[in-house]
């Protein structure tokens, strides 16, 4: 299967994939890990705002998590095509 690497911000709604990289300092990675999004986790994008840079809403396991746009564009996801 063809895989593509996108950021959470550029992913389409309802697309799913695996988090492969987080571009940012240790602080960002620990914050994401603590809330349940370590590298390697399966993630589904639920929605993002229509008007540009609003937060992205994802589903990880059974939890919905809101991620600010800046942070979402630093999270890289390998998406199934």
């Amino acid at each position, binding site marked *: 299967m063809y895989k593509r690497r996108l950021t959470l911000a550029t992913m389409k709604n309802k697309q799913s994939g695996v988090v492969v990289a987080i571009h940012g300092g240790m602080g960002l990675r*620990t914050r994401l890990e603590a809330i349940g999004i*370590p590298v390697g986790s399966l993630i589904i994008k639920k929605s*993002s705002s229509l008007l540009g*840079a609003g*937060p992205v809403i994802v589903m990880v396991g059974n939890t919905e998590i809101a*991620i*600010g746009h800046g942070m979402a564009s630093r999270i890289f996801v390998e998406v199934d095509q």
Partner: protein
Amino acid sequence: MKILLIGNPNVGKSAIFSHLTGVSVTTSNYPGTTVEYTKGYMTYKSKKHEVIDVPGTYRLDPVAASEKVAADLVAEGDILLNIVDATNLERNLNLTLQLLEYGKPMVLILNMWDDARHKGIKIDLDQLEALLKIPVIVTNGLTGEGLSGLPKKAVTAQPVTPRKLSSAERWETLGKIVPKVQNLSHRHHTFIERLQDISIHPLSGPPLALALLYLAFTIIITIGEFVTDYTTRLFDLIYTPFILVISRLLGGEGLLHSLLLGELNGGEIDYEGAMGVLTTGVFVALGIVLPFIILFYLVFGFLEDLGYLPRVAIMLDRLLHKVGLHGYSVIPMLLAFGCNVPGVLAIRNLESRRERFITAVMTCTTIPCMAQTALIIKAVGTRGGAYIALTFTTLFSVWSIMGIILKQMVKGKTPSLLMEIPPYRIPNMKTQFKKLRMRIICFLKEAIPYVLGGILLINLLHTSGVITWIGNLFSPIVKGIWGLADETVAALIIGTVRKDAAIALLTPINLSHIQMVIAVVVLTLYFPCVATFTVLLKELGLKDTTKAIGIMLVVTLLTGGGLNLVSRVFGPELIIVGEILFVLLLSFIISLFFQGENLKVVNKHSL
């Protein structure tokens, strides 16, 4: 023995704490309700044990101030009761593994067991116990189901062998444990889940939020006005005879008589204007503010327990980035509409000093608490609804302009929003009632002494002539810049004690409609009430509080002056000008949503 209740945010620690200790604490449905730990006691086999409700945390290497409290407490605890959201095992157990490293006696409490069952999640408890080597129980914190066996399990728990794991090893361990104990079955979307999606969907979310806001305001204002009209009659009927008896006992005149009862108007007491401690003081607190407080917390408590607040935070995230904050700051601000004190306390959930400072300053300056709003509705509302609208439009404009300036002034970075969105839960009637009762008691205990004391103080200052002296002193500002009567200074003095009492003091002063609006706006902006000031000092420290107060005074001077100037230029047309300004402001805010500056950033990162 020190027993700690510890777990991720919003897993129901406070509800379980209430059941174990009988101590009432605030519970709701958003992460970060508890910012300070609460202590209580639990008796087991005639031995008293200290139980501590620890603020929720995702980790023990803290960033936010409320997380630091948690990390410090764990080190001191004797027994750890780790509360876990059963619907969210993997993430929650990460903290469990971190807690196991302390080697202390520990019990795992799988809370929200019902929710998990409804979601089709099955957990093998025996297997989980065997893998973690600690006792596991299941509960429903809201109802207290499953908690009866907890005290015994807690006291008899044995210390565990500590296992040090790195962060990667922890996820790896979890990756092995969770599939072994958890069995998920697929199920269709429920009505509530659909509602969840609708309420944050970019198309349907904002209109729904606006509709809810409108509904909430209408409910509070209409019912509030109706009820307070009724309380006036109730006071005439029941309270007036009692006051007249006291009046007779005091001999019908004299210093004490005017301090306590004020102007009785021959038995036809005007409770808002009498200015006695027992007449106006008691009436303002119980006859006007209390009904509004009850209404506000009825509506707010419902939205809070439903889980709506985090969704507002998400919708306003973009707007708040414009003022140097992110979405979560909405939660302290919304709490502040009830009372500024819990609003300021909730800034602890914010991560950076910059966010904490900006949120605190904006909250204390521009957000009127419900007690104050009640009086605004009463005092300004009698002059027409448009003047209430003008008052709030002005406050909102100040909020926006202040935020944009503060964003430039205050150094530091604002991180992105990162927040778990709790599922909607239908509020439990019993919990709602308990919370409302707690908030009413808190209001009565906090407000009544200050309202009565404030009116007593102002009466003393009046009779001693000090007010006239201070009035003359500040006349250049009060009369010169804001265009108000010198007597308004009395309200400004009391405003540092209680804002509702201060606005009540404006009623007898002969002010034009516009002057009334200016006075109320100035009273909101210039200084926090004493209770808020105290927590502000505690949360921000002396240096930042001084800065905050400085900002407030400058803002007040400019806003009051600006309004006065505009009213001089436009005269009675000010209302129309206000409405035009409102439309301009609204379109400005909408344009902020549409502008594409952040898109560039997106492209840079997505390469």
